[in-house]
């Protein structure tokens, strides 16, 4: 579904955000891109969306070399990729339903199809009774669910999530991950950039660790070790004991969507 062959991205000024990255992601996989801030996770997401051009290398998405894709075809690439961001990117002047419908309106879907698809996807993310609300009337978790609904309403082949839980508390994050898990089980390939150890360790999916623009680990069912704290914190860090998240692979405490 996604293949990166020796991809290098150097920004103006010489910052190397990706260095000779090769990666192969199969259809239906759930992949975590992990690493500290500035490691190059978001750059990979932007490269997959063709928001950035590679400096060297090739990226294949759904059988197409997107590095050679003419600019006018980029919108068609993006229709096959749903995107979720840390800051939700919702339109404050539109209601929940309108935000989700907007993604279909701008690609020219007929109104009748839009209505039914929006209803379905809002039900999927558990917001079917909040369709008339505006984003500022929702909690952070609810806003992120709207963002996921908008990303998935077009039934994309791939869903890219860049720190989708970055602005959310651990409990809300669990809800978001349950939705992403459910979407993945429907056959959609999910690639999620995160530095949330608890979530990665609880999900036990493929983990691609990136540091200084390089892939340093690619492990199926892997975890994500928390870097050692330089100073002992006064209050214990995540994951909190009362959350259904555990790094122990024998205790998959993140509830399965299909169960």
């Amino acid at each position, binding site marked *: 579904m996604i293949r990166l062959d020796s991809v290098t991205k150097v920004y103006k000024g010489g910052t190397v955000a990706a260095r000779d990255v090769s990666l192969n992601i199969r259809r239906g996989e759930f992949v975590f891109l992990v690493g500290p801030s500035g490691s190059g996770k978001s750059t990979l997401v932007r490269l997959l*969306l063709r*928001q950035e051009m590679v400096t060297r290398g090739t990226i294949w998405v759904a059988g197409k070399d997107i590095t050679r894709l003419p600019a006018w075809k980029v*919108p068609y690439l993006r*229709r096959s990729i749903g995107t979720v961001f840390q800051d939700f990117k919702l339109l404050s002047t539109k209601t929940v339903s309108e935000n989700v419908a*907007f993604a279909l309106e*701008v*690609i020219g879907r*007929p*109104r009748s199809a839009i209505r039914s698809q929006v209803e379905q996807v809002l039900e999927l993310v558990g917001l079917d009774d909040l369709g008339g609300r505006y984003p500022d009337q929702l909690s952070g978790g609810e806003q992120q669910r709207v963002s996921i609904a908008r990303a998935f309403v077009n039934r994309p082949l791939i869903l890219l999530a860049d720190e989708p839980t970055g602005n959310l508390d651990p409990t809300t994050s669990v809800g978001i991950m349950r939705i992403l898990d459910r979407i993945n089980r429907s056959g959609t390939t999910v690639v999620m950039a995160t530095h949330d150890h608890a979530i990665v360790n609880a999900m036990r999916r493929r983990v691609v660790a990136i540091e200084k623009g390089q892939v340093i680990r690619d492990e199926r069912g892997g975890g994500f070790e928390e870097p050692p704290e330089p100073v002992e914190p006064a209050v214990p860090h995540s994951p909190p004991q009362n959350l259904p998240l555990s790094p122990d692979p024998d205790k998959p405490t993140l509830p399965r969507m299909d169960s």
Partner: protein
Amino acid sequence: MGRMIFLIGESLVNLRRNALVATGAILAVFISLTLAFGALVVNELLRLNTIGWQQGTHIIAFLKDPDQGGLDAAAQVTYRDQVMAWEEVETVHYVDKAGAYEEFKEIFASRPELIEVTDPLKLPASLRIELASIDLYRDVQFRLSADPVVREVRSFGEQIEQLSTISRVLNVLGWGLSLVLGLSAIILISNTISLAIYARRNEVSVMKLVGASNWFIRVPFLLEGLIEGVVGAVMAVLTVWLAARNLNSLGETIQLITLNIPARFFFRWGVVLVLFGATVGVAGSLLGLSRHLREVDS
């Protein structure tokens, strides 16, 4: 159809959000095209009036009386025939003293005291000359002035030349100002579009993310510019048309000149100006889009 409604709705939202700046852009187009159309109308009026004069008398030669060294009535008629034979001359109409007095009475019909004190014999006979071409008026005027039997020569050629000069100056001024204001209208519309893009940068960013095609993103902004250009142009055409209608009613009271411009002139140039306004609007939009759309995070 649904997409068109969506796009028109989006451009109306743009206009509503940028109402003040959009009004400025519309006014710039309006002023620019009003000046251009005004210049066209003035030019047309001058053309219509000079055509009217060219079809009538171009030169009047007042003849001396016999006691001033001039010719008697019979010789004056002969003199008319001589002038008529000049190749620059199309027709000559001889107005004798009695005819001149009749004209005088017509002109001063509202002032009977003036008519009463005027001696008919004091009014000179004259030749009313229509030239083959108005360009030749200087030659004929010179020949007549040099003739000792002619008391005075009056020519409308000068007035026609002056009007042509005025017309040219008005044209240059009108079109020059229109050009400058037209350019400022393009820049203003471009700024309106830039502001609209800035105000809607989140929507544009989301549109790009979810795969809206480039033309789909651009169309609402192009429509916005188009609406501004067309509204400004329609306002300009209506304003000049109304002004010309009022002038026409004034012309009916003046009678000496025609201020009546045919409706087909307004229709023909109205369509041209509205198309020009639309072009200005779209050009401004394209300028704004090229400058700022790429800056929106894609």
